[in-house]
């Protein structure tokens, strides 16, 4: 299996966020919100740092 570099990011973020959400919060609603927050931070930080590295490399 050879996923693209960017496909690996949401896969990693999805699984890690699911575990973080379930283990770090008490109620289903708060678990979902925290999981979505972690997912957005994972993917968002990758996009931001990718652009930073692209601009540095130019």
């Amino acid at each position, binding site marked *: *299996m*050879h*996923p693209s*570099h960017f496909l*690996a990011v949401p*896969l*990693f973020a*999805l*699984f*890690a966020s*699911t*575990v*973080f959400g*379930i*283990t770090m919060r*008490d109620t289903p609603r708060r678990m979902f919100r925290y999981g979505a927050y972690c997912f957005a931070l994972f993917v968002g930080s990758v996009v931001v740092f990718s652009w930073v590295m692209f601009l540095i490399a130019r």
Partner: protein
Amino acid sequence: MATTPNKPNAAGKPAAAKPSSQGFVYLPLIAGWLVPGAGHFIVRKPIRGALLAVSIISMFALGLAMQGKLYTSAQDILDMLGVAGDLGSGLLYFLSRAAGWGGTPVQTTVADYGTKFIVVAGLLNIIAAVDAHNLRTGRKS
């Protein structure tokens, strides 16, 4: 003094669920380490257990499918940390080693990602097992 379950305590927060005094208190921790999600099934949280099992097993399987490396021996400190992370997956790690799965030398970037998927799956499984233990002891509801 013990607090009554689900009644607000002095801090205004609901008290944690009362722990059951029956059975081996470390069973969810050990079962959760050996089989991802099993600890939550033991403490009767099947939906959480199923979601954790799917997430951790999928992550481990994707790591193997990407030809990620399974750490087998510790030559230096980074290898030791890799072995520790891999061991967090419990039976998944031992079964994979017995079956000879996983690429030994990392030759592509995707294979390096796969190695990280496997290590992180183990670390997430440890978090999940500790969470099951906290549910068992009543530290979390």
